[in-house]
C-alpha cells in the first residue's frame, strides 16, 4: 500500500486583501509530522511534501510529482490550512500570490484539484481543508459527480473533511486551527476513536470531531463527505488498534497499542492486566515494579521509558481515584525506582519531579484522611477484617504498619516540609494510643524507621521524634535484637511471635541474621544524642551481628539486586563497644567505599533512595 501526502500551510499573503496568518504553517507541519514522520506513519516520506506559504506553481508541481512522476499511490492525502473561499460557485484555496479580485487566475480551485487527481490512477483521496467557509466546496463536488469520473470499476473514492460551514469562520487557538488540533489528537493517539479497525478513515474522524465541537458549543461546524467509497477508506493508522483483541494496552495504561511503546508493552499485557485487576496483596506493588522494570529495559531510549512509566503509572494510580490509598504512594515509589538510573537525563528528571508532586498530592490527602479517621476512631489502625483468630495478627503486623506510616509521612516532609504540623498531629495520636506498638518486630521496618528518623534529623526536627527512637531502641535491646527475618513466610511469623515473647532465644531460622534494623537504630541513636545511654546497656547485644550494605553509587540503588557495593558486618563486642565506635566505623567505610557524596545530594536523589527502599525493604537508604 502506497500513501503520499501533500500538506500545505499558507501564513504569508502578498495580497493586501488577505491578512497574514500565524498558525497555518504550524498546522501543515503538525499534520506532516504525525502522518509522515511519526511511529504511526503509513505515508512515504520521500514522496510526501510539506509546502509552507507556497505559490500556485509549487503546489501544482508537488501534485504532478506525487501523482504522475512517481509510482501512483493507492492513497493520496491533500491537507490545506490557510485562507479559502467561494467565488462564482467554486471554492478556491488561497496561496501566497492569490489575489481576491482575480481568484480564477491566482487561486487554486478544488475543481482543478479534482481534475488533476481524477486523471491519475490513485485509488483513494483524502482532502482536509482547515479554512473559512470550507463547506462551500460543495459547489465543486458537482464537478466530480460525473459517470466518467466516478462509479466505474477502478474509479477513485474521495473523503473530505471541511473545517467550517459555508457561512462560518474557522477558528484558531494558540497558533493551531481548531480542526487541525482535534484531528491531530485523534491520529496521534492522544484521544481514542475506537480500537476495532487497523486504519482510521477521514469521514468517521470528521463525524467524531463534529460531534465533539457541537458538544463543546464551538462556533464552528466541521463536516465530512465521502463519495464512491469502496473497501477500506484509509487515512491513517489507528493508534489504538491491537492485533490481539482480548486485552489492549489501553486497558491498563494510557498507551496506544499500535505505538512503539505500546508494542513493547503488549509483551507484558497479561502480567499488567493481572496486576491492574488485583494490586491488593502485599506483594502486588513489588510485582508491578518487576514488570515495569522489565518492560523499561525492553524499550529503546529514555524518552520511550518515560512514556511507558507515565502511561502505565498514571493509569494504575488513577484506578484508585477519586479515593486515596497508600497503594498510590507505593506505585509512585515503584515508578520512581525504575527512573533512578536515568536521573541524569533531563526528561527523566522532569518526569521524576512530576511523580514527586503527585506523591505530595496523594500523601497530603492520606495524612488528612488518617488523622480524621484516627480522631473519629482510635482503633482505626487495628485490622479488624476476618474472623475469629485473625484479629490477633495485629500483634505482629500493627508495629510494622505503624513504621510504614511514619516512614511515608516522613517521605512527605522531603517534598513538603509545610506538612510538618499535620504529621506532628498524627504522631501525637500515635503517642497517645499506640505507644505500646512502637516496637521492633521485623527487619522489614528498617528502611521506614531509618528514613523517618533520618529525615527528621536532617530537617533539624529530631527533638520532635526523639521519644519514638527511645521507644524503639528500648524494645530492641529488650528483645536482645531479635527481629523477624525479611520475607518470613506467614506461617513462621506466628512461630516467631510466640518465641519472641516465650523464649530467651528465637530460632535462628526465623530471625534476621545479620540484622540491619539494629544497625540503623544504633546510627540514629548516635545522631540523636542518646548513644551514651544506649552504651550503658549495649552489652546485652554482645556478639550480635549488625549488617549494613554500602552502595557504591545511587544509580544502582533501585535495582532488584544491587551488584556494586559492600556488605559490612560489625559484631558487638568485637568490632565496637559503643554507639560512637559503631558510627565512626560506618562513616569511615562509607566515605571510603561509596562514591556517594552525602553532602551534595539533591532532594530528587534523596527521595529516589527512600522510594526504592520503601518498595524494596531489603535495603536501607543510608543517604538520608
Amino acid at each position, binding site marked *: 500500500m502506497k500513501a503520499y501526502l501533500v500538506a500545505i500551510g499558507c501564513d504569508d499573503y502578498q495580497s493586501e486583501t488577505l491578512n497574514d496568518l500565524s498558525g497555518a504553517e504550524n498546522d501543515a507541519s503538525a499534520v506532516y509530522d504525525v502522518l509522515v514522520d511519526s511511529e504511526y506513519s503509513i505515508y512515504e516520506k520521500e514522496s510526501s511534501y510539506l509546502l509552507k506559504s507556497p505559490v500556485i506553481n509549487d503546489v501544482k508541481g508537488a501534485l504532478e510529482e506525487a501523482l504522475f512522476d512517481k509510482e501512483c499511490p493507492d492513497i493520496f492525502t491533500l491537507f490545506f490550512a490557510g485562507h479559502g473561499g467561494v467565488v462564482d460557485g467554486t471554492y478556491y484555496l488561497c496561496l501566497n500570490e492569490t489575489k481576491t479580485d482575480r481568484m480564477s487566475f491566482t487561486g487554486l480551485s478544488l475543481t482543478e484539484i479534482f481534475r488533476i487527481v481524477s486523471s491519475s490512477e490513485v485509488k483513494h483521496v483524502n482532502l482536509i481543508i482547515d479554512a473559512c467557509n470550507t463547506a462551500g466546496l460543495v459547489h465543486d463536488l458537482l464537478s466530480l459527480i460525473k459517470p466518467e469520473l466516478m462509479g466505474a470499476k477502478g474509479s477513485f473514492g474521495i473523503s473530505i473533511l471541511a473545517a467550517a460551514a459555508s457561512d462560518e469562520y474557522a477558528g484558531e487557538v494558540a497558533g493551531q486551527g481548531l480542526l487541525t488540533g482535534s484531528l491531530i489528537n485523534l491520529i496521534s493517539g492522544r484521544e481514542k476513536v475506537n480500537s476495532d479497525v487497523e486504519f482510521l478513515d477521514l469521514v468517521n474522524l470528521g463525524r467524531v470531531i463534529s460531534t465533539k465541537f457541537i458538544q463543546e458549543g464551538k462556533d464552528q461546524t466541521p463536516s465530512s463527505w465521502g463519495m464512491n467509497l469502496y473497501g477500506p477508506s484509509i487515512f491513517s493508522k489507528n493508534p489504538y488498534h491491537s492485533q490481539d483483541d482480548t486485552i489492549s494496552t489501553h486497558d491498563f495504561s494510557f498507551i496506544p497499542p499500535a505505538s512503539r511503546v505500546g508494542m513493547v508493552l503488549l509483551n507484558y499485557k497479561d502480567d499488567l492486566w493481572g496486576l491492574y485487576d488485583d494490586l491488593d496483596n502485599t506483594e502486588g506493588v513489588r510485582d508491578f515494579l518487576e514488570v515495569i522494570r522489565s518492560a523499561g529495559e525492553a524499550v529503546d531510549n529514555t524518552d520511550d521509558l518515560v512514556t511507558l512509566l507515565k502511561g502505565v503509572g498514571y493509569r494504575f494510580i488513577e484506578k484508585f481515584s477519586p479515593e486515596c490509598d497508600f497503594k498510590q504512594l507505593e506505585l509512585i515509589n515503584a515508578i520512581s525506582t525504575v527512573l533512578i538510573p536515568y536521573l541524569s537525563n533531563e526528561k527523566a528528571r522532569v518526569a521524576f519531579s512530576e511523580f514527586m508532586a503527585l506523591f505530595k498530592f496523594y500523601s497530603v490527602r492520606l495524612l488528612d484522611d488518617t488523622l480524621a479517621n484516627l480522631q473519629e476512631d482510635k482503633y482505626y489502625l487495628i485490622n479488624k477484617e476476618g474472623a475469629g483468630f485473625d484479629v490477633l495478627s495485629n500483634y505482629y503486623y500493627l508495629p510494622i504498619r505503624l513504621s510504614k506510616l511514619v516512614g511515608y509521612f516522613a517521605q512527605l516532609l522531603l517534598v513538603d516540609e509545610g506538612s510538618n504540623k499535620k504529621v506532628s498531629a498524627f504522631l501525637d495520636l500515635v503517642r497517645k494510643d499506640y505507644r505500646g506498638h512502637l516496637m521492633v518486630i521485623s527487619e522489614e521496618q528498617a528502611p521506614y524507621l531509618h528514613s523517618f528518623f533520618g529525615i527528621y534529623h536532617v530537617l533539624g526536627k529530631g527533638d520532635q521524634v526523639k521519644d519514638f527512637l527511645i521507644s524503639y531502641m528500648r524494645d530492641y535491646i529488650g528483645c536482645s535484637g531479635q527481629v523477624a527475618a525479611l520475607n518470613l513466610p506467614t506461617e513462621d511469623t506466628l512461630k516467631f511471635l510466640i518465641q519472641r515473647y516465650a523464649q530467651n532465644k528465637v530460632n535462628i531460622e526465623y530471625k534476621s541474621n545479620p540484622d540491619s534494623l539494629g544497625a540503623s537504630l544504633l546510627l540514629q541513636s548516635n545522631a540523636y544524642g542518646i548513644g551514651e545511654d544506649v552504651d550503658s546497656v549495649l552489652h546485652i547485644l554482645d556478639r550480635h*551481628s549488625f549488617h549494613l550494605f554500602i552502595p557504591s553509587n545511587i544509580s544502582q540503588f533501585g535495582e532488584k539486586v544491587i551488584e556494586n557495593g559492600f556488605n559490612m558486618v560489625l559484631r558487638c563486642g568485637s568490632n565496637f563497644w559503643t554507639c560512637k565506635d559503631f558510627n565512626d566505623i560506618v562513616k569511615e567505610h562509607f566515605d571510603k567505599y561509596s562514591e556517594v557524596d552525602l553532602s551534595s545530594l539533591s532532594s530528587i536523589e534523596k527521595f529516589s533512595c527512600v522510594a526504592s527502599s520503601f518498595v524494596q525493604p531489603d535495603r536501607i537508604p543510608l543517604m538520608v
Partner: protein
Amino acid sequence: MPFSYKTESKKFGKALLEMAVRAHREKISQYVSKDNMHSFQHGRSWLTVREDGTEESSFKEAGVELSIGYEDLIKNDINQFFQFLDTFIEGFTSQTMQGMFQTISESCDKIGNTVNQKENASQAEVFLEMLKKVEFSVNENGQVELPQIHVGTDAAEPLMQSLESQGEEFHAEVERIKQEKSEAALKKEKVRLNRYKGIDI
C-alpha cells in the same frame, strides 16, 4: 495440557528448594555455628573490619548441574527424585566446605600460623605444636570452647593412634597447654567485656 496444576507445581518446586537449602545449612552447621551463617541480599563483596585494617573479599559462586529425564518421570522412578535432591545438597555443601577450608588455609598461610609436618617426628608432636599455636575462645555462656580439629578420613585413624600411643608426659603437656590457653581465653574475654560501659567485672 489438561489439569496442569501449574500454580501448585510452582509452590511444590519452591517448597522443595527451601527444604534442600535447609538441609544444606544443617550440614554446614556441623562445622559452622548457624549464628555465623549470614545471608546477604546485595553486592558481590564484603568487608571484614579488624583493628589492624579492613579486608575486602568477594563472594565465590557455587553451582551444581542437575537433570532428571522425562523417561525417569514416566517410569515413576522415585530413586531419581531423592538422587536429584542429594546431588543438590551434597554439591553445594562440598563446594562450600572446600571454599571454607581453602580460605582458612590461605589465612593461616598469610600470617604464618601453620605447622609443617615434615619438620616433626610424629603426628602427636604436630598436634602438640598445633595446640600451642591455636587461641582458645569463650562462648556466650562464658565457657571456654576447645578448638575443633578437622582431618581427612584417611588421616583421622593414624592421628588417633599416634595420640593414644603417647606416654603420660605427652598427655600432661597437652593438659598444661589447655589449662594455660583456657586461662588466657578467660582473661581476654574479661578484658573484652570490660570494654562495655555497663560492665565492670
